């Protein structure tokens, strides 16, 4: 299983990478949406993408819209992992094509439970 982690915070990238690696994922990371799109072009298709909302150059919302507009990535599971905690943002992310939404702060159990919802791992 492969995962793409997109976050401008090195700490969050490290934490998510550790959690996912512990669940058996091979993890590739990117610091913003633009770099994530470049990684998608050159790396093997991920089974899961976790993306932050607020990032420089291209934010997570714009990234999800770009990914969903491309038929190659239309079905790829994407979870927004963000400090945005208002209902309006959850609605926007889902409407843009996010499959799940996890609010920061999170625990490893929460990540695992969300993956179970996505049918990717047992919670």
């Amino acid at each position, binding site marked *: 299983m492969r995962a793409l982690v997109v976050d401008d915070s090195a700490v969050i990238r490290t934490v998510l990478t550790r959690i996912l690696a512990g669940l058996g994922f091979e993890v590739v990371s990117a610091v913003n949406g633009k770099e994530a799109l470049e990684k998608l072009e050159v790396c093997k298709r991920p089974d899961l993408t976790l993306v932050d909302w607020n990032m420089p150059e291209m934010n997570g919302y714009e990234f999800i819209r770009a990914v969903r507009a491309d038929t190659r990535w239309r079905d790829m599971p994407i979870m927004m992992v963000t400090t945005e*905690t208002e209902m309006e943002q959850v609605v926007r992310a889902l409407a843009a094509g996010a499959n799940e939404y996890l609010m920061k702060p999170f625990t490893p*159990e929460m990540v695992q*439970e969300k993956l179970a*919802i996505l049918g990717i791992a047992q*919670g």
Partner: protein
Amino acid sequence: MTVQASDFRFLADFMRDAAAIVLEPGKEYLVDSRLAPVASQAGFSGISALVQELRRSTHSPLAQKVIDAMTTNETSFFRDAAPYQHLRKAVLPALIEARRNERALSIWCAAASSGQEPYSMLMMMREEFPQLANWNVRFLATDISQEMLQRCRAGTYSQLEVNRGLPAPLLVKYFTKRGIDWQIDERLRSAIEWREFNLAGRAWLGLPSFDLIMLRNVMIYFDLQTKRSILANMRKVLRPDGYLFLGTAETTLNIDERFQSEQAQSSCYRVRAA
């Protein structure tokens, strides 16, 4: 803060008598973590002072607070995938077929805790079995803790709680943001009858019969004799073709042989035909 041996023995006896809950030696850490906040909130200098007050009266509001604190469990929405999958794929379709003439279903969540289980079931039923909207569905949820029942009725959950196991589309559909918390819709809150009930007590005669009983992650706290008594009572209130779910780490094996496993992975049981 550490619990003195004599205080622990008193609390173990108190919890056994008040709620049939077993506190074995080695669980001092649990007493410490659960009761330190209660002691502090009630203005005691520590757990010892709280126990001293509890020794004076075991039927006080403080005693209820201690029971509440010791019986409150960490949980999540849609906790464990297996039982929900079995409910969705097998149990609810079978019950809906079996009750198609009477168009009535009765469900009991017997250890509602902070409400995530009954609300998860209700959301699943609304999403996947919309035909039940025209049925007479009686949904009872009980807990021994009054504080938990108040939380259940309010249906308000923190961000950390809605982060746990709740699919985002259901958050959007059934919850409203209230300040920093999230509250589940009034339609769902009022669809459940919330009632205080001690599984180890004697109030079973007042219960109706049920098609489906959720008794998950609570039996682990009881001694063998209490488990036997609870399961025997469950058989009396479970309709002959009904279903009982235990926690995924719990079993009726060597406790009540009248139950047989219906599906092991989800800890689903039915009563053997006589």
